[in-house]
Every structure is written in C-alpha cells, then in structure tokens.
C-alpha cells in the first residue's frame, strides 16, 4: 500500500525531526550552532521545558567516586554525637546521594555545608556546634583488592559551625 504524506502530517513530521535534532544536540553535548541572540533564549526555553537538552551520561565516561557526608555534633554539655542524612526510605537515599555528588560544584560547597549544618541544628536543638565532614571513597583495583587493599574514605572537606546565640553574637565559622 502506497502512503503519501499529507501537508499537515508532513509539517508534524518536520517538527518531530527538529525536536529529535535538538535531542541529539543535547545527548551529544553539542551547543546550539549559529543561533542569534534573539532565537537562543527561545530555543533554550523550549529544550528546558521539553527535556530535549537532557544529557545521558550515566556513569560515563568515568564512574564518580562515592561521597559520604557525616556530622559530628557537640551537645550543650560537651557530649559528642554523630549523625548523617541516611533515611529508611531508599527513594530518599538515592536523592540524598545525588545531592552529595553535587557537592563537587565548588561554588555551592560552603552554602551547602551551611544548609546541612542548619538542618542538623534543627534535628538536634541542644547542639551548640556541628562539624560537617565530606569524604570520598578511594577504591582499589580488583588486583589490589585481592592483595589486601580495601576501600578507603578520605576527607575532602570539613567545616565547623557554631549555633548563633540568641544575643547578637554570631560565631558561624567555616573552615574548609
């Protein structure tokens, strides 16, 4: 049976082809070429709303090292507590892990650490100081593992925060 494109269906096919071209640009990390300043914001708006700019670099080209965040808290009378973000809900844990991986963004690090410290102060109202520790996992090769090497957590970031006192004394300190 012979099929011919109607003008309407031809137009839709053309739009679909343009959409898939944008998808290919996003997937292959090719920036928009030769777009004028007037058109670029519209194109960016379109790809953000439709997801056409999405990249699919899952564990590619390399596997990012695991990151773990933990908190050492000092209570009102000097007692030490340890806490982390781990949840009983695996769906939430996946998101927490995504958040930790983005700690690699230099410009957001201190702000993230401050927000996490605030979350810990909220969870432990009696704590007067919290140390935020971010560690990354150094994994041995399979050969090294057979010879006795084991995964090793190494500290990548540390910041100490003290609770703001009710008076106007502010002692928030960041020591990365």
């Amino acid at each position, binding site marked *: 049976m012979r099929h011919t*494109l109607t003008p309407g269906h031809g137009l839709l096919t053309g739009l679909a082809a343009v959409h898939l071209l944008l998808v290919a640009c996003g997937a292959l990390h090719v920036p928009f070429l030769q777009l004028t300043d007037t058109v670029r914001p519209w194109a960016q708006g379109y790809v953000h709303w439709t997801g056409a700019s999405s990249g699919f670099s899952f*564990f590619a080209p390399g596997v990012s090292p695991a990151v773990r965040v933990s908190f050492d808290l000092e209570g009102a009378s000097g007692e030490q507590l340890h806490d982390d*973000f781990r949840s009983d809900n*695996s769906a939430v844990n996946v998101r927490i892990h995504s958040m930790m991986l983005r700690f690699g963004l230099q410009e957001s690090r201190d702000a993230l650490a401050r927000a996490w410290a605030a979350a810990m102060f909220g969870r432990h109202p009696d704590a007067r100081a919290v140390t935020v520790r971010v560690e990354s996992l150094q994994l041995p090769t399979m050969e090294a*593992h057979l010879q006795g090497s084991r995964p090793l957590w190494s500290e990548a970031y540390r910041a100490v925060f003290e609770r703001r006192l009710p008076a106007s004394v502010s002692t928030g300190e960041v020591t990365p």
Partner: protein
Amino acid sequence: MSAQSWKSSVGPKLAAFVSAPSSPQPLGVFRIGVAALLLIQAWSLSESLPELLGNRGWVPWSVSEALASPSVPRVDAVVAALAPLGISQAAGIQGLAFVYVVALVGLLLGLHTRLSAVVAWVIHTVLLNSISFFSYGVETFAHISLFYCVVMPVGAAFSLDVRAGRLSEAPSPLATLSLRMLQLHLCLIYLSTGLEKLLGPVWRDGTALWEVLMQPQYGQFDFAWLAVVPWMVKLSTWGTLAVEVGYAFCVWPRRTRGLWVALTVGMHLGIAVMMGLWLFSGMMTVLTFAAFGWPLVAEAMVTRVRAAVLLPFHSSSAR
C-alpha cells in the same frame, strides 16, 4: 542508483515509516507505565517534601538556584504567588504536590488525558527545576515522557476517554509518527550513553562495574567477591556497552528485536536488583517495552487468539 530512482524507492518507504496508520496501543501502554511509576515515586517521596523542596530544607532555594533553568519557574515563584492569598510555604508545596498527583491519576486512567498530561507536565517541570540538586536519571526520563504525553495521542488506547467516546482507538498516522519519535529518541539515548561510556578507560578495560557495584550507595550486596572473578566483571561491563551501543541497530530488525528488548529489560532488571535503582529501571523498562516490546506482545497475543479460535474448526474438518 540515480537520485531520482533513490527518491522514488526510499521516499514512499519513509512516508510509510512515519504515516502508515498504526494502533495507538503502544502509546497507551507508555502512558499507563509512566503515570503508574510517577505515582509510586510521588508516594515514596511524599514525607520528604519539606526537606527536598522547602527553603529550609537540605538545599535552600538560594543555593539550588545555581543549577536551575531561568526559563522555567521554580517552587519559590509559586509559593510567592500564593503568599498574598494567605497560603503558607508548606501548604503551597503540599497543594502543588496534590494537584500533581491528581493529574497523574487522570493520566493513568486516561481521563481527560490531554488536560491531565499538561497539568502533570507543567508541575513536574517546575518541581524538577526546583530540585536540581536531588534529581537523577528517572527525573530526566519522566520529564521527557510527560512532554510526550502532552503532544502524543496517548489517551487513544486503554483509557476512559476511549470508553466515553471522547477519543477513538482506531489506527492513525499520528500514532505512527508518535511511536517513531519515541523509538528514535530511545535509540539516541542508548547510543549516546553507550558511546560516551566508550570514551572512558574504565569501560574500555572492563572494570567499570567493579567501581559502580563497590560503591556503598549502589551496591545492594557485598560485591567484593567479584575481585576473584574479574572475567565476570569484564563480561558484564562489555555486555552493558554492547546492549547500549547495539540498541540503535539491533532493535529495528524483526529478527533481533525481541532479543534486544529482552536484553535491555534484563539489563535494567539487573540495575534495579544490584544497584537499588528501581524507579529508574522501571522507567527505562516501560519506555523500551512500550516502544518496541508491546507491538511484539500484541502480535503474539493476536496470533495465539486466532489459533485458539481457528484450531477447533481445523480439528473438526480434519476429523
């Protein structure tokens, strides 16, 4: 072959590829699968909304703004718009989530499908732009899928809209074009992720899965024993590459389609069991099954039903 003869032989095939009327059933399967998974996701995250979306959550709005798109509003804009009505931040976020869930239920059932899809897509886009720090693969595919639910005739099969006579489930050229778009998009996804993996030394030397499975947040079991059988790690790593890069080429021919759908679904089942990424794997399975698997299943079911109906007649005539 001259340009004229090429045009006359390939042109009609291309036209048939995108316009020969086909059943909208794969799109119905796609809609139901996506909506069901997103409802499960919404339920699983419902108790953590303040931490994920609130300004006093794990990532304050001023920080999450760094990864947000300026073209898409964020939750803070919605909360600010609702504030003059006396609606608090928490109530605004809960209200947005509630409308999102209602829209997903509408999408699942195929009730006023287009409207439900538009509402779910808009809210999902706003939520996604607000939780950029927490998002991972499943969000990417949910976003793409909801946009396709808006523009494709996904309500034309297995829906209350069809039952109520608002939509027809007759084969249509639009259903074909939509299915082709979904299929080609999936090929682009698997090809690009496979090729990008090929650029990485750990994928080429076959040790990538060791690095993935030994990470505490992914490894659902203790995989240290894999060091004793490195060939198994290499086989799995290179197998993953073969399935992903081969997808775009092997999922089209009839002879290899069923095998590639099975291999892809198997790979995602492995990701779910071994890495605990159930929603991501579910989403990818839905996409491949709807785009390439359902037509095979539907065909097999029709053949089986026909055989069951015709067999008694053949048997009696043979007697």
